[in-house]
């Protein structure tokens, strides 16, 4: 029983962090209709930024978010303005995959060049200090990560549903042309949304680095997980991303405990395949419109 509770706790706490990273991805997809393959490596970039700040300036990883999140937001706006926003025409979606992949490769190369290929992890007092729950010991970093993820997700939610800017984002998701007609500056919304999506990745990056060792290559593993969360939850749905992320991490932990660790990821991907057989649009996705 305690194993079950432990798996569940790990799933919920870890899942929230994945939900935050995936929320950025799904937001970008919903507004811009593009897949940002670079999201995984951007998370790792943010983790490295926090790492550099903590090594050189002895800044606490969670405090460093005050610097990394704005920096990553600006980077996101620049990527959208310089590359993604320039794509036009029917092959836009496919091209966005390739363009964001190009961005990812450049960032990966820069990270390798700067930090090398060895695994590092973020250190703070709360990565080693533990708290006693359900008969086992849990590092505080999991709790802090969970708390921050919840706060950040709530902030994104409030921004989307309680602000004027959020309304213009939702209008853009619904119908780009109509949004433009009623005076929404769609290009600006797109750039800012990309920035917010990347900033969410940055926030997730610090928490990821606190619980998992990483190197520049970790971005590939991450992006495959984030994409599957977004697909399972339904593309463009933030609530869906939350549910799917919790499901993914919990399912993995369960397989870890009750079966074999090596199949943990495979079980999750198999679950996606089965869900999509029944609901091709994902759990909370809207039925796909006509292919353009």
């Amino acid at each position, binding site marked *: 029983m305690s194993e079950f509770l432990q798996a569940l706790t790990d799933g919920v706490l870890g899942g929230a962090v994945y939900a935050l990273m995936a929320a950025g991805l799904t937001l970008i*997809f919903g507004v811009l209709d593009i*897949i940002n393959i670079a999201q995984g490596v951007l998370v790792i970039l943010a983790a490295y930024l926090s790492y550099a700040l903590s090594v050189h300036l002895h800044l606490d990883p969670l405090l460093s978010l005050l610097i990394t999140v704005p920096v990553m937001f600006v980077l996101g706006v620049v990527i959208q303005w310089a*590359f993604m926003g*320039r*794509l*036009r*025409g*029917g*092959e836009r*979606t*496919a*091209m966005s*995959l*390739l*363009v964001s*992949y*190009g*961005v*990812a*490769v*450049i*960032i*990966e*190369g*820069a990270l*390798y*060049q700067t930090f090398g290929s060895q695994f590092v992890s973020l250190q703070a007092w709360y990565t080693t200090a533990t708290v006693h729950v359900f008969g086992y010991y849990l590092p505080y970093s999991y709790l802090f990560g969970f708390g921050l993820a919840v706060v950040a997700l709530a902030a994104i939610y409030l921004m989307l549903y309680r602000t004027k800017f959020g309304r213009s984002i939702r209008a853009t998701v619904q119908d780009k042309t109509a949004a433009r007609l009623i005076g929404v500056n769609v290009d600006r919304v797109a750039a800012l949304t990309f920035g917010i999506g990347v900033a969410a990745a940055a926030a997730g990056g610090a928490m990821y680095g606190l619980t998992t060792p990483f190197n520049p290559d970790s971005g*590939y593993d991450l992006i*495959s997980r984030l*994409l*599957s969360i*977004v*697909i399972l939850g339904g*593309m463009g749905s933030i609530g869906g991303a939350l549910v799917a992320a919790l499901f993914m991490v919990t399912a993995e932990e369960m397989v870890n405990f009750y079966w074999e660790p*090596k*199949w943990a*990821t*495979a079980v999750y*991907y*198999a679950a*996606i*395949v089965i869900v*999509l*057989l029944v609901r*091709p*649009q*994902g759990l909370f996705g809207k039925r*796909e419109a*006509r*292919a353009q």
Partner: protein
Amino acid sequence: MTARIWRPVANLALLAAFVVFPLVFTNPAVTTDAVYTLIFVAAAAAWNVFSGYTGYISLGHVVFFGSGAYFTAIATLDWGLTGSEVFWLLPLAGLVSAAIAVPFGLLALRVRRHTFVVITIAVFFIFQLMAYNLGITGGSAGLLTPPINFATATFNNPFYYVALAIAAGTVTVSWLIRRSRFGLQLRAIRDDEDRARGLGVRAMRVKLGAFVFSAIPVAMVGGLWWYFTIIADPPDAFDPLRDLTIALMAFLGGLGTVAGPVLGALIIEPAQLYFFPQVGASYVYLIVYGALFLLVILGLPRGIIPTAAELIGKWRARRSQRSPVVTAGDGETDAEIAAGRRAAVRAGESAL
């Protein structure tokens, strides 16, 4: 009329050049790169038959590449095959991957666009995990080839000619498909799937047919790749970058054209093989590669072949308008000019 005579001649000359290539350039370093390049020519041309013609971008074709590699490896080791006997396994590897492609396609082709792309990625990761964890694949150590007893001086030649045969065969079939009713149905799906259905195209069957066909050459070169590189291990046989490289080749040359992916592969693979050892242990090559990648996609979004076709078409149109034989005189309407321009673009396309 001249095009009808010149094109087969030009194609045959090109093929002949490929055939004599290893006889002229005997340096093993050159022929090694040539084998890898032809492997990518075949893979990109095959990928294009599905993704280029239908517009469904698959990032899961490495599943077929890796499955072909592992099937060839396991069969070779189990049956104790040596030397050129192994090459006879390649068609079988193609069939095995075609059998994998049927359920894969039935699952993935139910959805469109983004979701399709991501499902192909998910299936890809399932296969990579299986390669790591199944008993027969040798786990993360991978599977080694038995010793190959080809003569040292011409060691690469058997691989080269097998790769050339697969590549030439794939391009030929790709060309035949593009001219056929089947190819027209595929492109109708790309342009507007719902309308194509409305006009009586059995979309699922047609898409699945292209998907399964495109798996076969990819698996064959996958098997050849294993035999040539001597080892298949999970991160290399199921390498996600290979899918993106193939897609980039097709995009650079011209998605959905017959010659485009071939041209793209002939440019990108030798460039990669040339540049990567140059910068050696440093990771600068990743940055350079990514930057070139962006430059190509943003600078030539439609690819080389369509862009060149348009330029040639425009040039011909201008020339023919100047010449007195074609010009109809003052009475020419806008519509006639437009029709003439379209014909010119078509002429440009067919010239390539």
